[in-house]
């Protein structure tokens, strides 16, 4: 039994934490939050590329470091903890994973080295309006060469260079690769609950596109990409939850009311103990997802759904109770609680809402039992 990360992976995590504490400080996050024209932190993005994080899981033949998904998980946790204002998840968990999963050799050779070098930002465009996306609900159309339709919202769609888009092709759904810097693509930046990450509405009018993976296999591929991303986002959520708990503990020790530390009141203690229990449940499920992801285990769909459901609930709980522990100060713009409260909601929705993943989890339990 070795259900833990290796010493090397822990060292990578330490290194990431130190780097992000310096380069993705609250001040850096707020610089993006407070500037509507700033989509992401360019210096941080360059720094992350130089450290090789963007290509951590990309094979060496395609310009990456050729490490495993476990290394990516420890980086994700630290990125989540730091509320890093960079298009990391869109580029690495979605765009690069989709290419590695379904791309032809030519597509991999064309895009992965640029991702690893930080020269290209990628994104993944699924949503077209309110409500959960299904294979039947997709209206964007691909005719074998061009793409038409609207995707809203697309996380990091305002700054991305390339997108993987789910579109109807014939009777089925296909994934297609689209260069966003072309005449057939119109972008509109969207205001969202978490301004530290960019979002856009993308309108495609006879945009040039090429298929990624087989025609009609797009929905299955999208589900597979979502399962992989779900595990990695769960680590970001665990990192964010843990940061909220640490903030709340720190405040509860230093803040006095009725002439005593508020952390000595059971009402506060029990709240923080509940944060801890939620995080332990989420972390344990996320580790299982990491194991399934890194070993390409058949349990991945079940493990990813459990990790995702647990982590979304944990981050929501920790972020809102961190504000509550801070009292009135927690409701001010100046105190950082809301950075986590905002990011918690974005991450809960980025790869599908909690209710969607809970339904997937039960469906996958049914499938497992039927098998």
């Amino acid at each position, binding site marked *: 039994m*070795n259900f833990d990360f290796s010493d090397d992976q822990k060292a990578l995590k330490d290194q990431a934490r130190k780097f992000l504490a310096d380069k993705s400080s609250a001040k850096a996050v707020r610089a993006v939050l407070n500037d509507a024209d700033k989509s992401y932190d360019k210096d941080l993005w360059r720094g992350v590329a130089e450290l090789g994080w963007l290509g951590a899981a990309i094979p060496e033949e395609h310009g990456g470091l050729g490490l495993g998904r476990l290394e990516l998980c420890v980086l994700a946790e630290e990125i989540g903890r730091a509320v890093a204002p960079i298009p990391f998840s869109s580029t690495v968990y979605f765009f690069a994973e989709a290419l590695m999963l379904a791309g032809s050799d030519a597509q991999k050779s064309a895009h992965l080295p640029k991702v690893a070098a930080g020269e290209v930002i990628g994104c993944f465009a699924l949503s077209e309006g309110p409500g959960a996306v299904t294979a039947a609900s997709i209206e964007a159309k691909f005719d074998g060469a061009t793409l038409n339709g609207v995707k809203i919202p697309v996380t990091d769609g305002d700054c991305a260079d390339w997108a993987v888009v789910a579109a109807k092709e014939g009777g089925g759904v296909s994934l297609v690769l689209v260069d966003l810097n072309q005449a057939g693509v119109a972008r509109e930046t969207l205001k969202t609950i978490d301004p530290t990450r960019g979002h856009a509405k993308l309108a495609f009018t006879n945009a040039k596109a090429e298929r990624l993976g087989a025609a009609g296999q797009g929905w299955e591929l999208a589900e597979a990409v979502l399962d992989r991303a779900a595990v990695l986002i769960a680590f970001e959520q665990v990192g964010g939850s843990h940061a909220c708990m640490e903030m709340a*503990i720190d405040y509860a020790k230093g803040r006095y009311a009725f002439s005593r530390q508020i952390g000595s009141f059971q009402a506060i203690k029990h709240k923080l103990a509940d944060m*801890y229990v939620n995080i332990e449940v989420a972390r344990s*499920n996320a580790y299982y997802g990491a194991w399934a992801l890194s070993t390409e285990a058949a349990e991945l769909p079940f493990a990813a759904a459990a990790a995702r459901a647990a982590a979304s609930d944990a981050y929501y709980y920790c972020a809102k109770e961190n504000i509550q522990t801070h009292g009135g100060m927690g409701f001010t713009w100046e105190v950082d609680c809301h950075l986590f409260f905002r990011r918690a909601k974005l991450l809960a929705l980025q790869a599908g809402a909690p209710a969607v993943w809970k339904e997937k989890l039960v469906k996958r339990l*049914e499938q497992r039992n039927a098998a």
Partner: protein
Amino acid sequence: MDFNDTPEEAKFRADARAFLEANVRPKSAEAERLSRKLSPKEYLKAAKDYQAKKAEAGFAGITWAKEQGGRGLPPIYAVIFNQEEGKFDAPAAPFSIGLGMCVPTVIAFSDEATKDRYVAKALRGDEIWCQLFSEPGAGSDVAASKTKAVRDGDDWIINGQKVWTTGAHFSDFGILLVRTNPDVEKHKGLTMFIVDMKAPGVDVRQIHQASGGRDFNEVYFTDVRIPDKNRLGEPGMGWNVALVTLMNERLAVGGSYGPDYKEIFDFAKGVASPTGEGALIKDEAFRQKLADWIVRAEGYKLAKFRTMTALSKGQTPGPESSIGKVINANQMMDIANTAIEAQDLYGVIDDPAYAALEGAFHQSYMFAPGLRIAGGTDEILKNIIAERVLGLPQDVRVDKGVAFKDLPSGR
């Protein structure tokens, strides 16, 4: 990351499995039915026989030192044996408190003669031990124990009452926390003793629980004599001894009880949804709840794997394992409550002849309130997590610097 045993662990697991297959029945509805048929006396006899076989085969006291009759193995091996034993209908319960908590305390605080007298017999199952801590006025605040011991020559004379003592009615010995000095602070006037449960003046009365069962006892002490050589630790150091006992409680990694998400998942396929057409499993609100139960049950199981990993590396698990009971007791109640309510009025029937799972959901529903209280209430466990894991300050103490006899105690 991998879930595999080391070669040594795998060999041990295979040996454990072979032993269990040769001596007890695998868990099944049929095995449980047969166990339920046994009278308490027959069950105890079966438990003692099983414990003797365990000791003979080297599966009792796995982590205890060889001088104490143990195997001297790291804690991971005890966890492996517990995992395998958990798959069988093994009558191990009567020994869990004695061997898990009481006897390790005796070993830690006794001289060689005392250890020679008690340890081997306990390990073989010849003698059963219970833990006498809680009192009517000392539950969560167990250091408020009032049962008193007064020195009389080479003996101590005990008067008072303990309560919620698991298995006292079939125990031979107990470890007993008493007040020897009411003139000092609460935690400083306690002393721990070994008590002979068959001694004159010890009166054990079974408690009739709200659930209908009788698993716990009240124990009354009237002028009971305990020789001074049965004292564990110095007079006044009883609280430190008790902390060692409670530390061992954490190593006895707790499992879940009663029907879990798998049982209610199967149940939901066969019962109609109260909100509309079709089976309960098709009901969206039910499916969302089921997902929450899966996440928590799997999360707890996986958290134990993380504890096992720490154990394999020679680390000792800390108070973080307190999360188990906080998760399980509430979840057990929630699952049982949902299963019962889903049946509409039929849900009131707990007669095994008619009820789903022969009434297991009802048993779970009625026992869960006790589990939320036993072994530290949910509230005390959350205090422990907050103070010992998260480092939050202690509550303001009104009993500091005050002699025990001057503390307010209410009714």
